[in-house]
């Protein structure tokens, strides 16, 4: 039998542990932000520049050079690009979440499970910071979305969970196989074109419907667009489907992570 039990027993200890995880996550997020923007001229404004540049290029290509015939294309595109950037950069960055913090992983009592969550949270901050720009663009194109905006945090949480569920497996795999990050980069790049980020799912050839229906990110993008463009509540079934899918992936992914975490220190 191999067991290391340092688990809290009483309710009070559990509360203490949750409080500690919350503080730990927020301290690490702040640290990463400081490291990232210390001694940089524009600081946090860089969070806006990347999506803005991407938006301009895509908007120029698909609205002037070869028009997409999607109504409210600027809002449509911006919602897609922002959410996709969060997903894509978090999955790629999560690969090195364990390998880039050996000093934390080697520390007795340090909860390594927090590291992939830290990466997803860091990227989420850029997403949330850029959200106001999206809302302004949407307001300008489609008017005020009203009560539907209340659903926005729910979609953000769903995307967070879905992304995190993949990140555990990716992080664990990268510790063992150091080319995981490259592989994930390619997969994400291909997925960018398979997911309706800059085109509308309605433009699919009819045989490709399944590709859209079975793609959780396509469902999540659809939910954002329903809110900011159609001003309607997102499809609850599709979000529940994404949640169920995230749950299954999370289960497998966390098990892999837990299994691999036994040898993290030896592999670093």
């Amino acid at each position: 039998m191999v067991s290391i039990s340092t688990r809290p027993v009483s309710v009070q200890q559990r509360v203490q542990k949750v409080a500690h995880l919350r503080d730990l996550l927020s301290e690490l997020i702040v640290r990463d932000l400081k490291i990232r923007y210390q001694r940089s001229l524009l600081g946090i404004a860089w969070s806006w520049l990347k999506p803005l540049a991407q938006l301009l290029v895509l908007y120029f290509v698909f609205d002037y050079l070869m028009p997409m015939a999607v109504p409210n294309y600027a809002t449509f595109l911006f919602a897609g690009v922002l959410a996709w950037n969060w997903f894509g950069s978090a999955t790629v960055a999560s690969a090195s979440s364990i390998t880039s913090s050996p000093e934390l992983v080697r520390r007795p009592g340090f909860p390594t499970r927090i590291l992939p969550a830290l990466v997803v949270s860091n990227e989420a901050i850029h997403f949330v910071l850029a959200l106001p720009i999206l809302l302004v663009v949407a307001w300008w194109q489609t008017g005020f979305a009203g009560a539907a905006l209340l659903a926005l945090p729910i979609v953000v949480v769903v995307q967070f969970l879905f992304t995190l569920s993949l990140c555990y497996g990716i992080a664990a795999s990268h510790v063992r196989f150091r080319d995981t990050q490259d592989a994930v980069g390619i997969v994400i790049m291909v997925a960018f074109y398979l997911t309706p980020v800059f085109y509308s799912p309605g433009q699919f050839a009819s045989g490709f419907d399944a590709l859209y229906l079975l793609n959780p990110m396509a469902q999540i993008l659809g939910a954002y667009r329903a809110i900011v463009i159609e001003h309607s509540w997102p499809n609850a079934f599709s979000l529940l489907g994404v949640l169920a899918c995230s749950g299954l992936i999370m289960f497998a992914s966390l098990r892999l992570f837990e299994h691999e975490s036994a040898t993290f220190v030896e592999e670093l």
Partner: protein
Amino acid sequence: MTTGSILVENVGKRFRRFDRNRPVTLKEVMLTRRRKTRREPIWSLRGVSFSVEPGRAVGLVGRNGAGKSTLLRIIGGVIKPNEGSVRIKGRIGALLEISAGLTDEMSGRENIYLLGVIGGMTRAEVDSKLEAIIAFTELGDAVDRVVRTYSTGMKMRLAFAVAVHVEPDVLLIDEVLAVGDAAFQSKCFDRIRAIKDAGCTIFLVSHDAEQIRSICDEVVFLKDGQVVAQGPTDEVMAVYESGSGEDGPQWALRGGADGRAEVAGIRRSGSREVEIERVELLDASGKPASCIHTGAGLQVRFSYRGSRGNIPVVALAGISSGDSVCCLEVNSWEGGLELVAEPFEQVVTLAFEQLDLAAGTYHLSLGLFSLDWQQVLDSHEEAYSFGVVGPSLSKGFLLPRLHWSAAQEGRSELA
């Protein structure tokens, strides 16, 4: 289990040997055909068992590569053992690579929060100890400067100050006590003693015998991944420093160079009509020993000489524990040996085939008496001490080979 206790049972850790040829990338996995050749695994730890009671300080000594750091990391839960189990109750704190985790771009104060939270405290706990931590660092106003501008010593002091304020139930320390100048070091020592006095269990890895002696109650001596000796600090450190444990249990004698274990200033009484002359303690294989393992054999060999011929005598031998509690007393008459002193040296050997004593320091008493016990000829009371290494007991001194088992009552009969 009470908070702060450590229970290590039969822990073994195997390290993979095919490190260099192991595929590190997916590509290599696909390209290399799986070779069937299996090599013998290398165990960096095997069969390590011990328990530590709350509030005790345990030292871990051994040469480089003996498995000390691996064991410390297994106890810390960072590395999982391949066999056996480790059970720890309570929050684990660690002073290992303490300055790792410092962020250069942040101020000292911000780093205190970061390190504190990484070390297991909540922000509120750091808040409540902030003043004490800053005072401990001796950084003064520099605490609000960016850590990038700190000297190495300042960084170490900052990290150490946070680490010793975490207030864990179990504190693991690995060779990090060489922090800063001598004054700061002694302050760190005082702090660690205070942590221990507050009831924290301490597990210390060090090469420095003085550190071990000044902090630890017990010592575990590892060699090639196995426990060579375990017990009270003085006994085990004597074994460790004698350089023994290198070729099996061959303990050097603590007494004179001639192999005599006689201690100066012993309590000696009697008419000296017959005198005990040489006393030696030997292990089961007949080598001089000042220390044995629990359950190992011990031989007491002494010589005596009469001032005249033909004096019948009885030899008495007793073993008492460190606090002078008698463990046993035997005599040659009951043992069926008739002794007669003559004016030349005669040698008597008393062999304990198996001495089931718990770890500790024990004293041997020897005496020669007249056959009717009326006359004390030569008595050396608690004159010769020896150590026993092995599992220690919180109470008592008898530790026979034992095991616990449990069975479901009546099941097999009914079936």
